[in-house]
């Protein structure tokens, strides 16, 4: 028995295209045309992007506002907000700031929860009445006395976002994955977070007070061009990669290695993400299986560092091996999937699916609703830990202190534990926030996954690493009692066990040369190589070419004849 409330928080067919490439291709096509507009009219933002920017006027909930935290004047102000443009002074003489945010699609709580969805934690209820953006606008005005107007837009893939920025879209705050914000930082497009943002004495600095020490350490210790991530980026959601599988068809051992992708026992029954980075990681994991799982390697004191080096190996030799492996894999898997993977798992069309943990949680939730049980395994070689983080863009902030303050306040507001819980509940991914002194995150995990008192098969689940940053110790405060099966299911995906988290590593940002090499490799894997064409194929080609030439000659002669007449 578990208490997870599953009544359709997320619409059944609203599959989020996280990092997916089909959307990228669509936008690429659009981009080709937008380029034109951008070149000819750089001042016209209408043409410059394919995003669906809409102004969050905040007028929806205004009428129903009752005795919540809204101030008395809020209603009239909201009404005038509709007409508000960029940063300007309103009739009342009050300053207004416009904040342009671009985030993943369906990656924030949009409110409108049903009464039965209230999350009743010991420290108080959490409930999403209105969209979080509206709540932020109200909170900001109440706290700082300045009106803020959020223009919220979304993107489909990291590459989309990058192309949108290249085409001239301006945003103040964006939320790409780690390799993309590394790219943006290295291209000097990002404004560093202010010193005040890291000041723990300000009670409104929810991010620095609540961020998980474990993740904070990762952001402090990872650098790009000598700049630590934490100076520029504030984490939002994170996760790992793994295999969602049907336990009736696939054993846990079989699913716990990247080699399952080339396992002939599951020929044409596994789908894999259509993403070059994910495939590259899996390929190295499978190719270096023996080394990565050897006890000598595991007991190396520098294990984490060496693991990261192994999985980020981009030597030409390794790229060649990966290409061969991926070609084998392509002949063994069901297909590369763009967004059908989740649905195909739930309907039982495939036996296993390479998935991001957040989407894995979603897939298992969906299957649970149909009373169909799916499990999640994190491969024993290594798993890719990824982060989506907020960065402020130079192009948007332009040295405007008010705007930067609003942007940082937004990060803080969504990092407030109750808001982090709302987002997690709504989108299924895992927040960066462990809460600090606020117990609600821990209470939420227990509310979500904790065992009932009459539960028989329970297990202790150690999350000390997430709350204290210590991945070796055990603090009884942070050991949850959970149903045993949850360890391999949603809980194990949303908050990986300490054993699994130690085997995760970051996939670095590839520089231009590495990117070019790896993309060439990917094209080689995905394209039909003309050298593989059989003899009869060449004969057909020759016949076709001959016919084509004959038609061409006839056509030209005809048009010449017409001219003569």
């Amino acid at each position, binding site marked *: 028995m578990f208490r997870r409330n599953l009544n359709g928080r997320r619409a059944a067919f609203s599959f989020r295209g996280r990092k997916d*490439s*089909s959307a*990228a*291709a*669509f*936008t*690429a*096509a659009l*981009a*080709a*045309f937008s*380029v*034109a*507009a951008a*070149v*000819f009219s750089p001042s016209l933002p209408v043409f410059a992007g394919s995003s669906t920017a809409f102004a969050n006027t905040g007028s929806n909930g205004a009428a129903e506002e009752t005795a919540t935290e809204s101030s008395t004047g809020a209603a009239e102000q909201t009404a005038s907000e509709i007409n508000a443009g960029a940063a300007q002074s309103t009739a009342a003489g009050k300053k207004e700031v416009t904040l342009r945010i671009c985030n993943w699609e369906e990656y924030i709580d949009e409110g409108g929860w049903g009464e039965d969805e209230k999350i009743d934690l010991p420290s108080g209820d959490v409930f999403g009445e209105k969209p979080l953006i509206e709540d932020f606008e109200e909170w900001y005005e109440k706290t700082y006395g300045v009106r803020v107007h959020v223009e919220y837009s979304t993107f489909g*893939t990291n*590459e989309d976002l*990058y*192309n949108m920025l290249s085409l001239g879209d301006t945003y103040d705050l964006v939320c790409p994955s780690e390799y993309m914000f590394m790219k943006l930082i290295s291209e000097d497009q990002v404004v560093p977070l202010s010193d005040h943002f890291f000041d723990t004495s300000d009670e409104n600095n929810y991010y620095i007070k609540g961020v998980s020490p474990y993740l904070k350490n990762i952001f402090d210790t990872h650098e790009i061009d000598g700049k630590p991530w934490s100076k520029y980026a504030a984490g939002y959601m994170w996760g790992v990669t793994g295999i969602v599988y049907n336990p009736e068809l696939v054993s846990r051992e079989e699913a716990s290695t990247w080699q399952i992708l080339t396992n002939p026992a599951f020929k*044409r*029954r596994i789908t894999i993400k*259509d993403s070059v980075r994910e495939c590259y990681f899996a390929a190295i994991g499978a190719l270096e299986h023996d080394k990565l799982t050897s006890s000598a390697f595991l007991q190396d004191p520098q294990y984490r560092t060496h693991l990261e080096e192994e999985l980020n190996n981009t030597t030409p030799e390794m790229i060649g091996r990966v290409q061969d492996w991926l070609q084998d894999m*392509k002949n063994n*898997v*069901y*297909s*590369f*999937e*763009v967004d*059908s993977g989740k649905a195909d798992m739930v309907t039982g*069309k495939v036996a296993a699916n390479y998935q991001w943990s957040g989407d894995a949680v979603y897939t298992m939730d969906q299957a649970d609703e149909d009373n169909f049980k799916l499990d999640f395994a994190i491969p024993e070689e290594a798993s890719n830990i990824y982060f989506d983080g907020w960065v402020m863009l130079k192009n948007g902030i332009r040295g405007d202190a008010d705007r930067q303050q609003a942007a940082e306040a937004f990060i803080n507001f969504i990092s407030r534990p109750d808001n982090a819980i709302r987002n997690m509940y709504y989108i299924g991914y895992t927040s960066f926030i462990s809460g600090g002194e606020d117990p609600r995150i821990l209470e939420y995990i227990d509310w979500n996954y904790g065992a009932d008192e009459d539960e028989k098969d329970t297990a202790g689940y150690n999350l000390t690493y997430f709350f204290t940053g210590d991945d070796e110790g055990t603090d009884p405060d942070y050991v949850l009692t959970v149903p045993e099966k949850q360890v391999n299911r949603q809980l194990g995906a949303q908050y990986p066990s300490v054993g699994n988290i130690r085997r995760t590593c970051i996939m670095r940002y590839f520089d231009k040369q590495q*990117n*070019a090499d790896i*993309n060439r490799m*990917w*094209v*080689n894997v*995905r*394209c*039909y*190589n*003309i*050298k*593989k*064409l059989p003899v009869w194929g060449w004969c057909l*080609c020759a016949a*076709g070419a001959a016919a*084509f030439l004959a*038609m*061409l000659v006839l*056509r030209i002669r*005809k048009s010449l004849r*017409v001219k003569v007449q």
Partner: protein
Amino acid sequence: MRFSRKYLGIPYYIFLGLFVIAPLVVLFYYAFTNGSGQFTLMNFAGFFTNPNTLGTLLYSFAIAAVTTVVCVLLAYPLAYILATGRLRRKSGIIMIFVMPMWINFSLRITALKEVLTFLEGNLAMYPFLNAVVGMTYDFLPFMILPIYTTISRLDRSLLEAAADLGANEREAFLKVTLPLSMPGVMSGVSMVFLPAMTNYVVLDMLYNSTYIMGSLIGSYFSAYNWNGGSMIALILLGIICLFTYLSDSDEGQNNTRGGALL
């Protein structure tokens, strides 16, 4: 200033300039420059020396050609029967074939996916077949309609004349109906063949993981290689122009000379 009918054309000139000429100029610019904006022919040479891009071109050709042939074979008899037969409620039957066009594309392909899964068991075993079936399903109406229109507008007196001159039905069909319906077939072919070379969404949705031209261009753009992607788009455009030139029906000229009829 006096109103002239020329002014009515201004919106169209603006449209042409913004959405046809300008993108083409940019496409050319990107195709013939490298990442740092210098003129280069490397993108062009790269396409024709890489066995993978050539293979993709061939693979797209193969899918498009087979799809077109299947579409013609399915559509021609149907259009012929509908246009010449003594069926009642012809428009109703035509509508049945055209109706799928009015249903959302991805919904249709998703439904087809389920049907194919039911028939084939494991879809991943027949990627080429699936692609052809999906494309045929998607493009068939575009083949039926032009052929049907041409045949039904055909002058019946020509067939009577053929009969008077001693042709049997088969000869009359081969010598009169078929040549005169070719413009319809050609316009159907151009509406099926060219989109089929790039419509990679069908392949994606039916689990064919091999790239065709559309997905290849997309992959170049998501790898930030706009130059290479533009060149492939341009090459595709060139091929399309060549085909259009070939299939360009010169019926107008023929009719004035009375050529094809004799």
